[in-house]
């Protein structure tokens, strides 16, 4: 399904295309195609510089209101830009947590002061954000967070531990789910607090993943400090805010990802042609199935975005489960197409090929941001009205 462009939209597309071409063939040419899943810890400084250049040229946070530094672009324009970005091989956006998760949360739940303080640096890529949700004892059961925040004078004092925090190593700020009322029922004693990362009370320990790189980390809070006013959506109201963020995570950020998937898929097809796997009728079926699945994903996403604002639509509910399964299957298909060559690394001691990275990293897709099992619970309970499990 193709987007039909108006003259104005065509002009917008051409402007984006020209700028991306110029930058990614010029000052940022080394960044082309870098920083994707499995490669997120590479070229960090350069990708921050890229984010600043994008911000200065007005390409970050396109859909945000003008008062917060956005361009109030339509969803369609955002889709156009995303397509051009991936077509130009733009690098993984190091500011995406700020742009796609915290920003929309602040626009929705933040105070005017918080919006004024935190949104412009996200647009400018001056501040990089990470998400402090999961804990060793709070994975799928996120409401069980134990990291504690206590108000002392005009500061929150935070103690506890977060885990699986993507990009914690190079982030300036973290939005942290903290327990602020230990006596309240577990969903009602949580606050959403904005915490600066570069301080004495915080220690970041990168976690080496199955692919060998370290894109996420453990974050230890030992008397870390946060400003009293940096609670989003009110004290003890953090669960509601966090659920809002999850909805954003399922929403606007999917379009860019689709184009990325398409590029990966095209490379898998190319590999199949080179290896002769396209002669295998089973592989042909699987490639066609993946292609159909990809196109369906795109229409799903466009339907979902068109319905945005509607409370809870089915397309949004199924999005995560659908794309994570698709992507996992693509990784496996890539390996199957390569045959014995699938095993061979790019080099020692453990330099994975691009497709090996997809294969391995897609295993995280069905786990993070609500595992497939949690997604199915949400779909069943919220989408279909099935009764909850007795607790």
């Amino acid at each position, binding site marked *: *399904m*193709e*987007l*039909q462009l108006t003259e104005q939209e065509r002009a917008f597309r051409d402007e984006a295309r020209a700028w991306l071409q110029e930058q990614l063939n010029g000052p940022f040419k080394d960044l082309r195609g870098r920083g994707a899943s499995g490669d997120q810890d590479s070229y960090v400084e350069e990708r921050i510089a890229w984010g600043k250049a994008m911000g200065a040229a007005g390409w970050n946070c396109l859909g945000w209101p003008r008062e917060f530094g956005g361009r109030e672009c339509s969803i369609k324009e955002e889709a156009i830009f995303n397509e051009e970005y991936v077509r130009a091989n733009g690098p993984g956006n190091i500011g995406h947590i700020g742009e796609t998760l915290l920003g929309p949360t602040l626009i929705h739940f933040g105070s005017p002061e918080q919006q004024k303080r935190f949104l412009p640096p996200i647009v400018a890529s001056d501040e990089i954000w990470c998400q402090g949700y999961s804990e060793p004892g709070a994975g799928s059961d996120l409401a069980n967070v134990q990291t504690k925040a206590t108000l002392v004078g005009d500061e929150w004092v935070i103690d506890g531990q977060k885990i699986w925090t993507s990009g914690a190593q190079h982030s300036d700020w973290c939005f942290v789910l903290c327990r602020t009322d230990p006596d309240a029922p577990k969903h009602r004693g949580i606050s959403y607090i904005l915490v600066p990362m570069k301080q004495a009370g915080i220690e970041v320990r990168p976690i080496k993943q199955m692919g060998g790189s370290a894109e996420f980390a453990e974050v230890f809070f030992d008397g870390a400090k946060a400003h009293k006013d940096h609670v989003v959506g009110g004290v003890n109201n953090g669960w509601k805010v966090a659920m809002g963020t999850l909805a954003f995570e399922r929403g606007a950020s999917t379009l860019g990802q689709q184009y990325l998937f398409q590029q990966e898929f095209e490379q898998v*097809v190319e590999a*199949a*042609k080179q290896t002769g796997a*396209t002669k295998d*009728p089973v592989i*042909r*079926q699987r*490639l*066609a*199935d993946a*292609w*159909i*699945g990809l*196109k*369906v*994903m795109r*229409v*799903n996403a*466009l*339907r979902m*975005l*068109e*319905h945005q604002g509607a409370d809870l639509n*089915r*397309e949004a*509910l*199924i999005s995560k*489960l*659908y794309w994570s399964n698709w992507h996992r299957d693509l990784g496996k298909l890539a390996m199957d197409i390569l045959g014995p060559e699938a095993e061979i690394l790019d080099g020692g001691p453990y330099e994975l090929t691009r497709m090996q990275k997809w294969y391995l990293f897609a295993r995280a897709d069905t786990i993070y941001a609500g595992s497939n*099992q949690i*997604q*199915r*619970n949400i*779909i*069943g*309970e919220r*989408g*279909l*009205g*099935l*009764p*909850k*499990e*007795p607790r």
Partner: protein
Amino acid sequence: MEFSFSEDQNELRRAARRFLEAESSEARVRAAMDTEQGYDSAVWEQLSEELAWTALTIPEGYGGLGMSYLDLHPLMEEMGRALLCSPFFSTICLGANAILLGGSEAQKEEWLPSIAAGETKVALAYAEKGRESGADAIHATYRRDGDRYVLRGTKHYVIDGHTADLIIVAARAEKSQGLDGISLFAVSADAPGLQRSWTPSMDQTRKLAIVELEDVTVPGKSLLGEEGRGWDLCERTLDLGRIALAAEQVGAAEMCLEMAVEYAKVRQQFGRPIGSFQAIKHKCADMLTMIESARSAAFHASALAGQGEADLSEAASSAKAFCSDTFFHCAAENIQIHGGIGFTWEHPAHMYFKRAKATEVLLGDPSFHRERVAQRMGL
């Protein structure tokens, strides 16, 4: 572009649902499927005369309403949901499309107005015995005899072939092979030498027939499109049929999910509704995920068809493959979730399960369509 149905289309859906809940209730479906004719003539009259469904996609110049293929989509979903027993699909989604795409001005004027009015029912006879789905499936032959053609062969799996008034027959020139030499003929069902008979089938809600052509002589004006170049016309007709069928599958699959969910909410075991167990809940969640995705696939294809795009093959095959898999999966899971009662004749689950398999193998099964997509991808 809009990525969802318009308010008018939603209204059409609501009106269709109201009508079908009354006129295609389970009891009415069971009554219709028990007949050899396979449909209720009064319902056919109502939906063609009162509701003008048969006129929907026929252009205004030929007595139709000139609406788009996307307008038809919600209607097809509702017909699938209600398991409507009707020659609508064979007449409108296959037969009329062959005439629309391949007919001359005179042919359109001859047939389309009476199709739009529900007076002429049409069937498409293209497949023959066996599992082939492409041009190779066509073995029936034609030969020229002066300004007439003589047709010979046996057509299988002809939807509503035993009740249609007009039968579109795909035949090939003697000794031709592959894509070449195929022509479509619009043959009156009472043509001498044409024998048709109902084929009892597992899915009783849509009737199939065998059409035998024993030196059936038809006038030259029966030829649709260019002689010998009919495969393209046949494919385009089939693609439109596949798209409508995909939409029908989505509606039927959704009904299976609704049945399963309702049952899972009320059926108690171990002191709680079975829908509170993740084993059941997750099945339902997977069904919903497949159904909404199938709807996207079918919607995309319907929208393209509505825009009059030249090549629908990839979208049609994608939709047909995806929606077939979805419907089958949901129909099977519905039985599993119902347990023993789902295996009985009394419960309607088997009617959907049977329709799912019937539509899956109709007009090309999923592996046929995935291979077709693979070819369009340049593999």
